[in-house]
């Protein structure tokens, strides 16, 4: 099977399944709340509806507002290309490593935050302000966690890290690795706007982060942004899954390996979805000014991870 075909396939796979994952999380949450809930396929329907609605744009907004959805989704898609989801090693490993992924995330945040400010609405500004705050505070944790992973693998290349974990499965159980996982998990929560950092289903403007920024969007723009956000969640979760529990990921390009990879990935994601849903049911949203405490905690975890990696190396 052509290597390039696999690259494309991965992206299509990710893009296609991303709304489903969100739907799954929502469905599990509904069940946990003793509700029937919408079926897991609901996000696809929402996208379909949004694509067929008109878009209303504020008269104060500039081209930034219209361009941002494309920029955000492009950068998120680029991440989808770079993250190993099904196969390692990959051709695209050389294009970017884990740092590139992190900075692409920042690129998306940058555009989205600008778009939030563009129409001049107070909500948008508030959302942007909070979003960049959270993004900035999550940065050190991400970098430190990456560092600790890179220490183990000798590279910041995602493929190399996953491959290293595959070669020596026991590294996964080292304290450094586990702590780094915890740290990155918190970052993922923060970056993807899940509870307790942000409530994806809130209706109160004053408690919003991500939602506040896109409050002004409608129609296809909203669809793109929502999809990009879901994509981000999917990519983040599969990254977590593959970095720390790489079993099942394909190392050859045979159809069998690939299908096995798909299956294991889906299982891992489902497990993570359950974890997230349970957690979101369990905890309430934090006050905005307590979010830094959470992120600091994650930073400490990451630092501990790196220290133990150094010491136990």
């Amino acid at each position, binding site marked *: 099977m052509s290597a390039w075909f696999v690259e494309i396939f991965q992206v299509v796979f990710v893009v296609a399944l991303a709304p489903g994952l969100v739907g799954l999380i929502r469905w599990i949450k509904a069940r946990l709340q003793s509700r029937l809930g919408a079926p897991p396929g609901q996000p696809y329907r929402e996208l*379909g*509806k949004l694509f067929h609605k008109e878009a*209303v744009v504020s008269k104060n907004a500039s081209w930034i507002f219209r361009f941002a959805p494309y920029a955000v989704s492009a950068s998120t898609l680029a991440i989808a290309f770079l993250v190993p989801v099904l196969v390692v090693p990959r051709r695209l490993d050389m294009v970017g490593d884990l740092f590139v992924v992190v900075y692409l995330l920042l690129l998306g945040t940058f555009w989205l935050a600008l778009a939030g400010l563009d129409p001049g609405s107070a909500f948008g500004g508030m959302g942007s302000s909070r979003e960049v705050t959270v993004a900035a505070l999550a940065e050190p944790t991400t970098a430190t966690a990456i560092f600790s992973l890179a220490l183990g693998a000798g590279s910041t290349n995602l493929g190399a890290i996953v491959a290293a974990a595959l070669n020596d499965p026991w590294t996964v159980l080292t304290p450094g690795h586990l702590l780094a996982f915890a740290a990155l998990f918190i970052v993922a929560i923060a970056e993807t706007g899940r509870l307790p950092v942000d409530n994806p289903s809130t209706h109160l*403007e004053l408690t919003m982060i991500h939602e506040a920024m896109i*409050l002004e969007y409608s129609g296809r723009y909203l669809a793109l942004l929502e999809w990009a956000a879901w994509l981000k969640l999917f990519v983040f979760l599969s990254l977590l899954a593959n970095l720390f529990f790489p079993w099942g990921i394909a190392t050859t390009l045979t159809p069998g390996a690939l299908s096995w990879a798909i299956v294991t990935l889906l299982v891992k994601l489902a497990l993570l979805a359950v974890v997230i849903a349970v957690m979101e049911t369990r905890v309430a949203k934090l006050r905005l000014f307590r979010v830094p405490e959470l992120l600091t905690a994650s930073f400490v975890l990451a630092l501990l991870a790196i220290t133990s990696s150094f010491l136990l190396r």
Partner: protein
Amino acid sequence: MRLFSKILSVGIVTEPLDNGGEEVELARQVAAKTQKLLGRAVGIREVDAGSCNGCEIEITGLTSPIYDLERFGLCFVASPRHADMLLVTGPVTRNMEVPLRKTYEATPDPKLVVAVGDCAKTCGVFQGSYAVVGSVDAVIPVDVFVHGCPPEPSDILRGILAALDRLPPK
């Protein structure tokens, strides 16, 4: 842990579909309609144009586990930009006239308006008050009125159904 044991013990309380009853029947129809017309995903923006909040209490009931609006693909959204339908309650007061109109303008097409409660239609006991402009349809085009003071959640669902019915096919 206690939370989880509670979740397990309660189970799903949403009224099952095969339970009969008017609401469920309605719901089924709504589900079918929304699927057809809006891809079975409708964002609802609630606008309180001056109600006594009785209607709001009932509307809130729609999101409870019992009625669980979400299972039909309906959900309340935070911005009219995200909405497909406006749920307007109460008589339109002077202060809420412009906001109501603005909300209507802010909602992208295609869109629906459901006016909930007697006040929305007749202004109820507030009729003739110096602070009241008039009924909702005096300000924005209304697709469906839902009667009742306040209407029951099932009535509201019926109203939504009626509105979806009126949506011109795309």
